[in-house]
């Protein structure tokens, strides 16, 4: 467990993809079975056991430490698991016969069968035996909060490197494998045959687009590309196929390959033809695409009630076909796959699944005009759900990952306003011990004259250097403290103006200002601007009108 913890810890700090791969491959090579198999399962999200609640962890530490010291420590560190891992008292273990720290396999297999009442005692025993990093990883694992910044795809690529295999081969057999993957490692190390995948509806690793820059256009010929709308929904892969008994199996995968079928039972009956569709999940009401805000209310629900299904009818808008019956179409050029797709959707003939239309254009200027005004370029009433255009090379095969020069996304310009920093809160986790969560507001006339009304919260967009500057500003200009929240001076002549960029705007009754921003981020610090020159609520309301008028 300590060795796995060390790997997690190091991965969390390492930004480079290739370096992450090296760390992963080195770990997988040096760690014996079954530990490395369970590690691979943990990294690919393939482990399942009941997670411990944070309250349980809190109780454990409260029994062992002074509550005042715990409070001060938690406030400083900002993350419960890390605080507990760091301050867990050294166990006064008698003699030299201390038990060895648990292995990862021991932890995983024990957690699978452990009764709820035995969990606290078992956890405490492990925490006594592990070192700081081991305790941290254990707590992240048992609370289900292990975020390590690597994708399942990267972990599989690292495994492939063990046996000099193509990561793609791992993806193909992956659905048929189970932790701790002894047959996979045996094959990779030349000790066994290639495992076979018997999954009738497997996931195919997705192809991703690059964000296009102004300078890219000069090197690209419009004639080589097909354009589509970029929908503001959820990218999914809908796969159907017949199992050994001839039963049709349908699955919906997220872009990372997570099986999300259970959340969308209403779409399953529509997937009645054997094939693999790449498309966008949207909510449609009376044939009209709803905004992302609406779709969001359908996501991440524990229970998918009939009411939810009725109020948020799910829809799949298809833009690519990766396979049909037994045939893998991914090697074909996009233009040909598109032709297959059009036929497939026609044959499917289902109201829940339609074709994402192409956008006609003969020059980049024409496409720019379409992107600026999707409503009059074919998107019609759905224009509000368009976040830009996608450019796909006619000749491009479907390549996993983000291959250069094949697909581009060209987003609509983000909106920008100048707002005033009003409140700041310490970041939890990554930004702990810094004031990194900011509530900002714009001016409006109220009963007492001009006042600031909060319009959003931003957690990112700034550089580390800027974070230090804001953090210092917050500490020096606090007017009041409410628990973790600091009120920061925000007067017409005194305060900090933040340039905030955001992707979209919607009416909201939950916000005092009546508007809600999508994806706001700090794009610049305007030390040069006095708060009185910041934007007004009317500006946002005008933007809102512009959006709906489109």
């Amino acid at each position, binding site marked *: 467990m300590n060795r796995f913890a060390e790997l997690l810890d190091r991965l969390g700090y*390492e930004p480079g993809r290739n370096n992450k791969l090296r760390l992963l491959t080195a770990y997988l090579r040096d760690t014996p079975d079954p530990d490395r198999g369970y590690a691979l399962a943990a990294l690919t999200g393939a482990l399942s056991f009941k997670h411990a609640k944070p309250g349980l962890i809190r109780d454990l530490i409260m029994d062992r430490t002074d509550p005042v*010291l715990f409070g001060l420590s938690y406030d400083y560190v900002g*993350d419960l698991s890390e*605080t507990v891992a*760091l301050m867990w008292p050294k166990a006064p273990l008698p003699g030299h016969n201390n038990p060895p720290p648990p292995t990862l396999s021991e932890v995983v297999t024990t957690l699978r069968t452990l009764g709820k009442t035995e969990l606290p005692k078992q956890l405490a025993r492990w925490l006594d035996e592990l070192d700081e990093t081991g305790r941290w990883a254990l707590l992240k694992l048992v609370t289900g909060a292990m975020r390590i910044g690597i994708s399942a795809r990267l972990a599989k690529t690292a495994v492939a490197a063990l046996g000099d295999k193509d990561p793609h081969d791992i993806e193909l057999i992956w659905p048929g494998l189970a932790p701790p993957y002894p047959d996979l490692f045996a094959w990779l190390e030349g000790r066994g045959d290639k495992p076979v995948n018997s999954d009738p509806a497997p996931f195919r690793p997705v192809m991703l687009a690059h964000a296009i820059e102004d300078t890219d256009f000069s090197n690209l010929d419009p004639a080589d590309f097909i354009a589509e709308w970029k929908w503001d929904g959820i990218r999914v892969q809908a796969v159907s196929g017949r199992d050994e008994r001839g039963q049709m199996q349908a699955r919906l995968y997220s872009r990372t390959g997570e099986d999300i079928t259970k959340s969308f039972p209403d779409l399953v009956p529509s997937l009645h033809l054997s094939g693999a569709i790449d498309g966008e999940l949207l909510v449609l009401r009376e044939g009209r695409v709803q905004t992302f805000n609406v779709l969001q209310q359908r996501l991440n629900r524990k229970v998918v009630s009939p009411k939810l299904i009725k109020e948020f009818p799910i829809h799949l808008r298809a833009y690519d076909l990766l396979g049909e019956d037994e045939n893998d179409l991914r090697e074909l050029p996009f233009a040909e796959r598109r032709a297959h797709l059009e036929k497939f959707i026609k044959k499917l003939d289902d109201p829940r699944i339609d074709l994402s239309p192409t956008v006609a254009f003969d020059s980049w200027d024409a496409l720019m005009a379409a992107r600026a005004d999707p409503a009059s370029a074919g998107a019609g009433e759905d224009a509000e759900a368009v976040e830009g255009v996608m450019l796909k090379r006619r000749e491009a095969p479907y390549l996993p990952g983000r291959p250069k020069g094949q697909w581009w996304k060209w987003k609509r310009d983000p909106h920008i306003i100048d707002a005033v920093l009003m409140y700041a809160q310490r970041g939890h986790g*990554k930004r702990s011990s810094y004031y990194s969560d900011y509530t900002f507001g714009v001016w409006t006339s109220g009963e007492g004259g001009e006042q600031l009304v909060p319009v959003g919260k931003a957690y990112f967009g700034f550089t580390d250097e800027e974070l230090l500057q804001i*953090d210092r500003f917050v500490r020096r200009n606090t007017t009041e403290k409410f628990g973790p929240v600091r009120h920061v001076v925000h007067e017409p002549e005194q305060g900090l103006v933040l340039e905030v960029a955001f992707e979209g705007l919607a009416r909201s009754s939950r916000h005092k200002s009546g508007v809600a921003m999508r994806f706001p981020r700090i794009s610049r610090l305007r030390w040069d601007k006095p708060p009185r020159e910041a934007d007004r609520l009317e500006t946002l309301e005008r933007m809102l009108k512009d959006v709906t008028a489109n």
Partner: protein
Amino acid sequence: MRPQDILMPVPAGLCCKPGGFHIDPVRPVERAVITHGHSDHARPGHGAVLATQETLDMMRLRYGDNFARTTQAIRYGEEMRLGDVRIKFHPAGHVLGSAQIAVSCKDTCIVASGDYKDAEDPTCTPFEVVPCDVFITEATFGLPVFRHGDAADEVKKLLASVALFPERAHLVGAYSLGKAQRVIALLREAGHDAPIYLHGAMEKITYYYESRGIALGELRPVKGVKKADLAGTITLAPPSATSDVWTRRFPDPVTAFASGWMRVRGRARQRGIELPLVISDHADWDGLTATIAATGAGEVWVTHGQEDALVHWCKSRGLAARPLDLVGYGDEEEHESAAADEAEV
């Protein structure tokens, strides 16, 4: 005599009226007694300075020959009369030449420990527990989450990374006085005998350590070395330099940082560190509490750092304790970066 009649915090620092001197004054004073050479404790412009030979030498290296009107060196264990008090220097284990200063008047003894650590360090004399009535302790790492572990293990981590990434350079951010030399010495103890490279700002002080008989192996200035030749090497640099354009001279550098702050992940991430090394020249929580208990002091004054937690701990043990409101001191590493205002909280 009450302890606060012997030593009292004033804006210039800790003032000893009956002895006619200040300890680690932050403003120019007539007579200064200085615990160690870090710039927040040892400042220029005083009349007379009393300190260990090493501390005086470091001040001279940093500020030039005229950093004080007169200087006087004192050895560990040496006692001296100043006005109505007696003072005695004891090793603090923080950096080369660092001292705790015991101030006695009649039968009351106060120990101003400056910065200290009770962990092993091959580059300085080990910390010594000095029994006293009042113990003045720092609290840089005064929270129970700061447990620093064995520095040798952290150095092993660094060497493992060098072995895994032989084509990359490893850049270790370390405060140039004390931490850098300790890291080098630990690398040598771990069997790393390749040349170690130095950022220009580290050279003078590191060669000074060598001149005091501390063996650091082969050292080379990094300036002028070809990029490709730095693959697989270790370079020590001031923490601020590791996030600078200066790093572009290294092949795909791994940025490490040797500091007690690295115990907290958020801190390390914040600074863009890829390889945090928990190596501290300050006592950790267990060190602080064990030392306080070992001095037998009935009263504890707590200064720079996380005073609240340590004061609370002392009180829960039945000790009289209070924070000393001294300004102008910080953790030296944080001094070099912008995050020094933690002290405001």
